[in-house]
């Protein structure tokens, strides 16, 4: 379906992007204590907008479209919310709001004191990430999406180096270089596409792109660039120090959402802009990289001694699962949408679970003054809610019921059986076992007895523990989704996925 007219309520899409932008501008102008207040006002409003868009797409089973400035593509730029964008936006909004609540304690600005660097910067960057992500999921123009990606990068990198230690500066610099490499490759693909097809509008491209060398090279370059930003194995080197080095709320957003932004664009590219290009081989290549990530990330996570690094390596592994979407939907049976739904559920449940885990890790580190897993004994008596949150989030990573992760992995397994591609199932099962290994490694220590009396550094507030728990519960609640292809996630998709690929 080519979006050619602004639909009713399409203005919500503009608001979803502009609201955080307005927040950034006001925060910069006002400064001081206003920065946090502005965020606190805008977060719930943004959540309501995201929920409204989600509700409308669900109710009408139809994409929302907005033609910016009234100039139609290819001259102008369109925004489009289909099923996956709506779901992704709602997930983003929930995680960002939770992060905002969680960060209040850490990044507050006391009355009367001069501006605090970390607090001023954090809130603006949080809003920056939000507007970047919303543009990424709504954009329908490849260059507009490039600007959105940069928006995301420029908000994410300073978050990594916010603490200012030399390790985090190094991590941020490495992240920056990877991200620049990624965006420039993406742009290279864009120029090839414009040169060959004369438009950058995704909906228009879907009808024009044919399997031919220029399309293949453009798609490969863009995919490579986006993979570097998604940190898919073997381009993952930058992720662990970056995600582990950021302050806990920052890590939560980076791991739960930011890497998914570039993944989302890979899906847009292969399924929406160039649906005719996906074939068995390309699906297998992406799937193999994903499998490598699952095994490699999980094994390395098991070998970590620090909690935040463990969680960061687990992110690498969990991102790997997402890439099973590609091989498992490359065929043309109607069952394809099982893998489609499974993959997206994996994305959403991982977002909630991982944000919750990083928050829990932050709370544990604050309580103990360190995050060495070996010395966690007895922590469950001090901050039981946090440990429960970590455990529930862990269920989802392992894929144990009841959890969103279980439904996601179950659907993906089902798809491997239906597609006859059993080899992915082996990887998933091994990955699940390894995830169980590292989650229980942490829980085992946390639930065990203290070898020495615990020295507590800072008490943490109950409210922040509850935020972490709520996100973990969101991941669990996703487990109530029926075990079947979701209709919402297919809104705006070609009738049956893969039909064009034949």
């Amino acid at each position: 379906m080519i979006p050619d007219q602004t639909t009713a309520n399409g203005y919500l899409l503009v608001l979803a992007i502009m609201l955080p932008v307005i927040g950034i501008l006001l925060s910069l102008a006002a400064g001081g204590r206003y920065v946090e207040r502005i965020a606190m006002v805008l977060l719930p409003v943004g959540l309501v907008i995201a929920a409204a868009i989600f509700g409308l797409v669900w109710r009408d089973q139809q994409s929302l479209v907005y033609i910016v400035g009234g100039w139609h593509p290819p001259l102008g730029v369109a925004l489009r919310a289909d099923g996956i964008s709506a779901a992704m936006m709602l997930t983003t909004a929930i995680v960002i709001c939770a992060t905002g609540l969680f960060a209040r304690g850490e990044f507050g600005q006391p009355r009367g004191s001069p501006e605090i660097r970390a607090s001023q910067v954090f809130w603006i960057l949080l809003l920056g990430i939000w507007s970047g992500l919303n543009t990424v999921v709504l954009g329908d123009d490849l260059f507009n999406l490039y600007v959105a990606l940069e928006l995301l990068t420029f908000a994410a990198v300073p978050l990594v180096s916010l603490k200012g230690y030399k390790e985090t500066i190094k991590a941020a610099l490495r992240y920056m270089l990877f991200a620049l490499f990624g965006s420039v490759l993406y742009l290279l693909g864009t120029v090839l596409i414009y040169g060959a097809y004369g438009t950058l509008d995704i909906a228009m491209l879907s009808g024009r792109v044919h399997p031919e060398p220029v399309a293949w090279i453009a798609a490969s370059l863009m995919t490579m660039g986006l993979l570097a930003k998604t940190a898919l194995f073997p381009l993952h080197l930058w992720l662990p120090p970056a995600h582990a080095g950021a302050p806990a709320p920052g890590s939560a957003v980076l791991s739960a959402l930011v890497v998914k932004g570039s993944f989302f664009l890979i899906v847009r590219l292969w399924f929406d802009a160039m649906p005719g290009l996906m074939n068995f081989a390309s699906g297998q290549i992406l799937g193999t990289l994903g499998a490598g990530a699952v095994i490699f990330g999980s094994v390395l996570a098991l070998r970590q001694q620090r909690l935040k690094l463990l969680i960061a390596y687990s992110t690498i592994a969990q991102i790997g699962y997402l890439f099973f979407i590609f091989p498992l939907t490359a065929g043309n049976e109607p069952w394809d949408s099982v893998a489609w739904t499974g993959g997206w559920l994996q994305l959403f449940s991982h977002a909630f679970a991982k944000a919750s885990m990083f928050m829990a890790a932050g709370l544990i580190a604050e309580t103990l003054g360190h995050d060495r897993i070996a010395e966690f004994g007895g922590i469950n008596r001090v901050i039981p809610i946090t440990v429960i949150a970590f455990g529930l989030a862990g269920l989802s990573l392992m894929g144990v019921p009841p959890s969103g992760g279980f439904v996601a992995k179950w659907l993906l397994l089902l798809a491997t059986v239906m597609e006859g591609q059993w080899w992915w199932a082996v990887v998933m099962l091994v990955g699940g076992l390894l995830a169980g290994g590292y989650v229980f490694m942490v829980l085992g220590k946390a639930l065990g007895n203290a070898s020495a009396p615990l020295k507590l550094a800072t008490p943490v507030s109950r409210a922040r523990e509850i935020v972490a728990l709520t996100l973990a519960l969101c991941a669990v609640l996703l487990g109530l989704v029926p075990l079947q292809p979701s209709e919402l996630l297919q809104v705006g998709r070609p009738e049956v996925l893969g039909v064009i690929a034949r």
Partner: protein
Amino acid sequence: MTPPFILEIAFVILILAIAVGTLVARAAFTAVLLFMIYGLLIAIAWVRLSAVDVALTEAAIGGGLTGMLLLGAVARLRESEGSGEEPGLPTLLAAGTLCVLVSAALGTLVLSRPEVAPSLAPMVMDNLAQSALGNPVAAVLFVFRAFDTLLEKVVLLLALIGVWSLAPDRAWGGVPGLRLYAEPSSILVFLAQLLPPIGIMIGIYMFWTGASYPGGAFQGGTVLAAMWLLVMIARLQPVPAISLRRIRLLLVVGPVIFVAIGLLGFVVADAFLAYPADYAKPLIITAEATLTLSIGVTLGLLVAGPPDRIPQP
């Protein structure tokens, strides 16, 4: 082969040679100098490609501001950037092969469909009258794809926040650590007194003429930024503390007005970032004028770097 074409070939070889030089130069200072020359040559290449707007941008930003930024960096690194571990031969070979393949693929593919030569030029020209601007590039930037331009302003501001975020905690709100020229009696002071009036006029002219001819807010803003930096380096104007309210307001005034005009489009025109037919030109000029100012301040502060001096109470 016509003589101009032979000259062009020589020109392209020169560009590539300097690009190679930039990458292999042993001293960082040499590499940066070569890069600045490279930026200016690229600007000429843009003129050859009939893209004067881009040439102006490239000359101002690619040759000018980037060069200044990198020279400042080299001065601070004091040539001690270290040699690092050069990758081994297998890596070099693999990387080399990959890059040659990419280049070859691009060279053959970018013009692989000469029979189509897709272009939006006719569509732009058809709608130019409606856009109220005479310069087609400006029409794309501020009318047809105004949304990109707006978001890019936000990118610029986020980059500035990112740069500021690297300040030490105690210096937040303080004065950026721009390197100032030490000798007050220097001829540089004379230049900083003589040039800014002319430069500011050129900056404003570039933005003003940009509506109809090559030029525009970016190019004008860059010239303003350069003048501001010159005056600061020569110590004729103090480097402002980043907590100053007027600096913050200057940073956001352009984007705020642009957003406001965009939102106004919901009410008075029929879409976000649409301009009502009767007032299109004055609205766009207002947005561009304030954007020129904000871009100038943002670029200047980006080059000035993170604050490193504690704010005076």
